């Protein structure tokens, strides 16, 4: 495995870490199974790319992409909270609607920004002065963004408002009894979750030079896998470590794909990629459980002796 490939995996892992953090908020904090992300990820990419192509400042474009992501989360929350549509179905409705909306936003299925200035351009220039190649600058930039997001999220989730949001997810009835407006927290949580996913989409478009309407396929699977792998690897009940776990899980997921891409030497074909990735991730989840009973037995034998 080459350094460029590993850096690429780390960079994609970091971009999708923002998705994992968003999914963490919806699935884990709010207990809201949200499939909107399959639409809000390409939405973020579409909005950012389209605005950049129209000569907008890339930072402004990214900001609007984040807002667009938040808006899609609010739509799902409204369908659920206001109109009592089952959360899963509400998010599916938003997701499929976003496919058409993304096509409208871009005006075509694929917008290229390979030659436009992005938020990364000044950093590429800086990297050139320091002798750093683009392949190093990109993951460093995304890492900085992810660190800022993790710090802000950790702070938010330990604030009074954040604690109320966590209470909403754990036991909505109890939270209401304590005077927490659960509806408000679902709106804010879903907006925040999809805002992060929109940011991920905007960064994906800018680090790779294009937005494609199909780039949302399987976003939820990647995000969920990252969250769960992260929970297995980083076992902690401290919120900041749980967030770090999402980031680590996302990077590990990409490294699993990278290993799968290099697996052709054992007679695997290109078409086996998804299977190998699934097996690696399943292995990562199962292994700690397999080892524990053995350890437990060993320690039990030790004590009985």
């Amino acid at each position, binding site marked *: *495995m*080459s*350094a*460029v*490939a*590993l*850096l*690429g*995996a780390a*960079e*994609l892992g970091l971009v*999708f870490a923002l998705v994992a953090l968003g999914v963490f908020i919806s699935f884990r904090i709010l207990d809201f199974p949200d499939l909107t992300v399959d639409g809000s990820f390409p939405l973020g990419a579409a909005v950012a790319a389209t605005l950049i192509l129209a000569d907008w400042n890339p930072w402004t474009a990214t900001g609007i992409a984040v807002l667009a992501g938040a808006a899609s989360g609010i739509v799902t929350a409204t369908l659920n909270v206001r109109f009592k549509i089952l959360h899963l179905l509400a998010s599916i409705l938003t997701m499929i609607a976003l*496919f058409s909306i993304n*096509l409208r936003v871009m005006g*075509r*299925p*694929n917008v*290229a*920004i*390979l*030659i436009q200035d992005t938020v990364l351009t000044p950093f590429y220039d800086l990297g050139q002065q320091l002798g750093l190649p*683009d*392949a190093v600058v990109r993951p460093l930039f995304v890492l900085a963004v992810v660190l800022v997001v993790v710090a802000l999220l950790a702070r938010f989730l330990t604030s009074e408002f954040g604690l109320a949001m966590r209470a909403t997810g754990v036991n909505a009835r109890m939270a209401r009894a304590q005077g927490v407006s659960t509806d408000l927290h679902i709106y804010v949580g879903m907006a925040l979750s999809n805002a992060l996913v929109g940011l991920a989409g905007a960064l*994906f478009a800018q680090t*790779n*030079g*294009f937005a*494609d*309407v*199909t*780039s949302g*396929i*399987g976003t939820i699977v*990647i995000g969920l896998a990252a969250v769960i792998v992260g929970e297995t690897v980083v076992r902690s009940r401290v919120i900041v470590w749980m967030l770090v776990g999402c980031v680590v899980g996302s990077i590990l997921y*990409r490294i699993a*794909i*990278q290993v799968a*891409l*290099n697996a*052709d030497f054992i007679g695997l074909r*290109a*078409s086996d*990629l*998804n299977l190998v990735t699934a097996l690696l991730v399943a292995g990562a989840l199962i292994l700690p459980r397999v080892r524990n009973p053995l350890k437990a037995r060993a320690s039990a034998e030790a004590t009985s002796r």
Partner: protein
Amino acid sequence: MNKMTRVAGTALALLTLATPAALAQTAPKNATVAVTAIVEHPALDATRDGVRDELAAQGWKVGENLRFDYQSAQGNPGTAVQIARQFVGQGPDVIVPISTPSAQAVVSAARDIPVVFTAVTDPLGAQLVRDMDKPGRNVTGLSDLSPIADHLALIREVLPEAKRLGVPYNPGEPNSATLIEIIKKLAPGQGFTVVEAPATKSSDVQGAARGLVGRVDAIYVPTDNTIVSALEALLIVGAQNKLPVFSGDTDSVQRGTIATIGFNYYQVGRQTGEIVARVLKGEKPGDIPVRTAQGTDLHVNPKAAQAMGVTIPEAVVARASKVIGQ
């Protein structure tokens, strides 16, 4: 041997020796070519096989002096990006991305490694190159823009009375978005009104086709990955309702559309392979103009036509390069 032929033979030999290409052709050295496509799909797979076979014809054989890596992103642009980085890290002699998203991922990641993209309909719109004739930098390739004017003329020749033309396509495919614009621009010239039938996944294709029944006089299937994947579903609707179906690629005629003129994706691959070979021989990709796939094969399928209630005119069958079922 008389004097004339000997002189001509010597001249020819000198001429062959004088061309640099012929010099380079003598002994192809070992090469690595990395190929990636966004998804496994008959047309894209045929393109890949065409590239491999053309390289073999030019002296680079898999297992001898050619390492031919292939990866599919399984439909996920995120994975396409990761494959692109993987290839750049490996540093092959040429990277061949098939389809628009794969090409964009590779062009974005590869600054110095030669890239020969293929099966991209609109390379300028996709920002793969800034100029078709002088691409510059490390990128060149082949556009698979089909000869739509020829297709429309052919449909007009087979169906002189037809007025409304149904076009099923996936609005999520960049290639199709380009094609539908061209179709809408050229159709009035042949007296057609275009009726669009969007289908975003292969399971929607039959529904889209049914929606066209009674509203159109013929269906034209462009080189759209989604529609072509589910072509049989569309052909059933065509046969049941006596609605003639035409296609943009010759492979589909074999599967049961009435006729087309142009190329198939294996030929697209062979023509891409020619460009790859030029790069392997030392030409700079930036100096090689982006070509459009060429092909004037007329394929007709009289049996399919009969099932759809159409008789292909004798004149068309007579000049066909391939008549399916014969």
